[in-house]
């Protein structure tokens, strides 16, 4: 199991290869397309995070000590962003997730690349993922 820190470093490296916004966006779009779809039964109101413009379904479950996230969105770039978050936080221990310092977001300039509404969505998504981990850990 790679550490959260390690995975972030990898993402930062990936993004350093990109010259312009278009390559970054294309990468996000690709990630979005490749995201393992959430099981239909989890695409329910309870798992819905309503953003300003797009909707996100997020599901988390605990397997042994590990939290596994699956998610979906109706917008592909939103999906790409979730895919990155999942790659960093899924398959990690709850405690690690809750205390994770997600500095890669600033490092890859994701917030500046995104519109303010999307950046807000990003922040609330991270909050939600950490909350889920916390809740599952206490179960």
């Amino acid at each position, binding site marked *: 199991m790679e550490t959260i820190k390690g995975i972030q470093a990898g993402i930062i490296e990936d993004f350093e290869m990109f010259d312009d916004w278009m390559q970054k966006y*294309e990468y996000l779009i690709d990630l979005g397309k490749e995201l393992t779809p959430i099981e239909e039964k989890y695409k329910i109101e309870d798992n819905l995070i309503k953003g300003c*413009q*797009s909707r996100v379904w997020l599901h988390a479950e605990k397997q042994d000590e590990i939290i596994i996230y699956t998610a979906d969105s109706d917008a*592909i*770039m939103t999906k790409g962003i979730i895919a990155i978050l999942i790659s960093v936080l899924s398959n990690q221990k709850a405690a690690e997730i809750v205390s994770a310092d997600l500095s890669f977001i600033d490092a890859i300039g994701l917030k500046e690349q995104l*519109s303010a509404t999307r950046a807000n969505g990003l922040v609330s998504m991270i909050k939600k993922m950490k909350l889920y981990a916390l809740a599952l850990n206490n179960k």
Partner: protein
Amino acid sequence: MFDLNKIREQFPILKKQVNGKDLVYFDNGATTQKPQSVIDAVSNYYQEENANVHRGVHFLSGLATDKFEETRNTVRQFISAKHNHEIIFTKGTTDSINLIANGFRSLLKKGDEIIISELEHHSNIVPWQMCCELSGSTLKVIPLLDNGSLDMADFNNLLSKNTRLVAVSHVSNTLGTINPIKEIIEKSHSVGAKVLIDGAQAASHICLNMQELDADFYCFSAHKMYGPTGVGVLYGKEEILNTLPPYQGGGEMIKEVSFEKTTYASLPYKFEAGTPNIAGIIAFKSAIDFITELRIENIAKYEDELLQYATSEILKIEGVKIYGTSKNKSAIISFNIEDLHPYDIGTIVDKMGIAIRTGHHCTQPIMKRYNIPGTVRVSLAVYNTKTEIDICINAIKKAQEMLS
């Protein structure tokens, strides 16, 4: 006469680059850009004339008051209202509608009905929901036809002797539909109902004549007509405004205050409590002057030309569907592209310097009607060009490529 370059030159922001590209501003339905004359009017007010209006004996106060009232007079002329005191300054369309919804509430009882339509902006829905909830009256909704126009047959059925007020927009901010408000007003009056028109999307595009139109209330926002933010107009017929209780309490709106009994000032002051947005209201005159100098008929004609061009170009995009295809339409185009989310399209074309709006445009019932999460909306103004439309269409096609 209608010199596009000269018009564009007046808008400093149009020279701006965004994300390294020349700005193409197609979000005029949300707010328009401002000509230098409006910007200067604000600065000039603060540099030369700033003082609180009304009641002051000193020179600056008199000057500010005169200019303030001059805007009121200009607005009256602009919409051909009968009296200056029928023009109430508010902070925007939303404020204007809420003022009436609040006042009208006191005239309503259980069983009374208010009619709105399925294409209204939330600002012309929520105040009436609140009004109905508090007064026990019922909200009825004129449904949409597939082409985005109102189902007038259904409207006729909804109208009854219980109808007290009909509140519809002049132009839909999402679909562009120009509603047959003259007909709506006549029919509503024939059953004794009052009519409020939400003119937020009309005032800078359609020539208005209150006396001819015979609307009881008409609301609009300066910021959507080349004017400053934080300024709105509520036009109301004198005799009806006089029957409504005041909205906010405060300075200016009173005649006499004592703890035993407070009496209210006459129109328009009765509805203008507190220090108004003096700078904005004074500068609003320059915005109206900008429109009247170009003549609104010329603006409408040019915008219609842009609308036709943009529509035909957008229709060339593969898998595109335009929402709002009624014959009588203003220069607002909402559309979606098959399999793509509007949000993704908006995010990508923004990087190419193009400001369009995506989402529900504060009209969630329309989204529900068409069962879509949102639309991409291009809304045009007098300073836009066909070249900009070409740039925008190319950007959208590029986004489509990236996303497919």
